[in-house]
């Protein structure tokens, strides 16, 4: 386990100060957590405008219901979970307003609908190295839930991998942070690819 203060620790430290009355420290919570929240909302499949809405809503909820975060140390995980729930709700509202939707098809309640595949939308031409392109290729080949999990986890703190994957409904082991199915699958694909040598 790493001992350097990661995203979760930075967010938690600033959030504790905020709760203790140092309100400007909320800006530090925002700086630390917003990238992870953005990638969480995008991983659910929202376009940029709606993804920002989902992030804004999660922050509003934190300010109004700061007491809902029972353990300040988990504020990043709370924000990620809240962003994801809000993003799924926004995504379902959009799906409902689509006229072509067949009402006889039950809607999935627990998983994110209409996941974008990483090969569409994002600007992949910016990837400069063969190593980055190889990583992108292999992560794109994972199933959507693994892509979502790894995208969210990559932007949170490494020790949070177990907690976040459990919150995303993908527990990866009962004791300690293990690699988990998604990361193990990605590792195996990368190991077999000569253009990505770790």
């Amino acid at each position: 386990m790493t001992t350097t203060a990661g995203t979760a620790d930075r967010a938690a430290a600033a959030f504790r100060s905020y709760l203790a009355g140092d309100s400007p420290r909320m800006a530090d919570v925002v700086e630390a957590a917003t990238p992870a929240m953005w990638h969480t909302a995008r991983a659910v499949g929202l376009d940029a405008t709606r993804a920002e809405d989902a992030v804004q809503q999660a922050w509003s909820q934190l300010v109004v219901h700061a007491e809902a975060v029972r353990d300040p140390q988990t504020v990043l995980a709370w924000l990620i979970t809240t962003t994801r729930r809000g993003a799924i709700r926004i995504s379902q509202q959009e799906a409902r307003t689509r006229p072509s939707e067949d009402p006889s098809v039950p809607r999935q309640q627990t998983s994110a609908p209409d996941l974008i595949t990483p090969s569409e939308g994002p600007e992949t031409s910016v990837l400069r190295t063969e190593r980055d392109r190889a990583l992108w290729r292999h992560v794109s080949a994972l199933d959507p839930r693994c892509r979502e999990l790894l995208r969210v986890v990559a932007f949170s703190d490494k020790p949070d991998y177990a907690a976040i994957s459990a919150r995303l409904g993908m527990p990866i082991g009962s004791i300690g942070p293990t690699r988990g199915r998604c990361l193990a699958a990605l590792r195996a694909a990368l190991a077999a690819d000569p253009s990505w040598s770790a």
Partner: protein
Amino acid sequence: MNTSYPVPGEYEPLDDIDRQVLSELAQVYTQVDPPPAGMTDRVIFNLTLAGLHAEIAELQRGEPALTRADQSVESMTFSGSRSSLMVTVTPDVDPEAPVRIDGWVTRGGTTVELVTADAVLARVADDRGRLAWEFIPRGVIHFVIRADDPSEPSTITPRVEL
């Protein structure tokens, strides 16, 4: 997850290569799909408003009414549950010139702040609730109606463009 077979290595503890892969993955996502410019600032701005624990007043815009030949006065009413503020904006003949703003708040003695892009101009209403601001540059403004009791929430109006 409906896959029943295990993936090799899935129960191994996280090692340095795993951390390296996740860190490179974050870099790749940052390159292909970064958060929009200014998003963090927009979040902080919205939270600053929310942090005042303020109520957002509703805006009812009045019809522009002609008073004198070349001056149209616009009135707006902001209604909150604790207090309401009505303002009229009297522009100069020159459409680019600063404006005068007269306000009436429901309770005399209330402090109302006019917030422009670069200043917060506080006024205390007289005993009949009247307030006035002169030479207000055009742009986006909003008002904050301070509660008499500091423990009570303030009321913030939506932003309006002069």
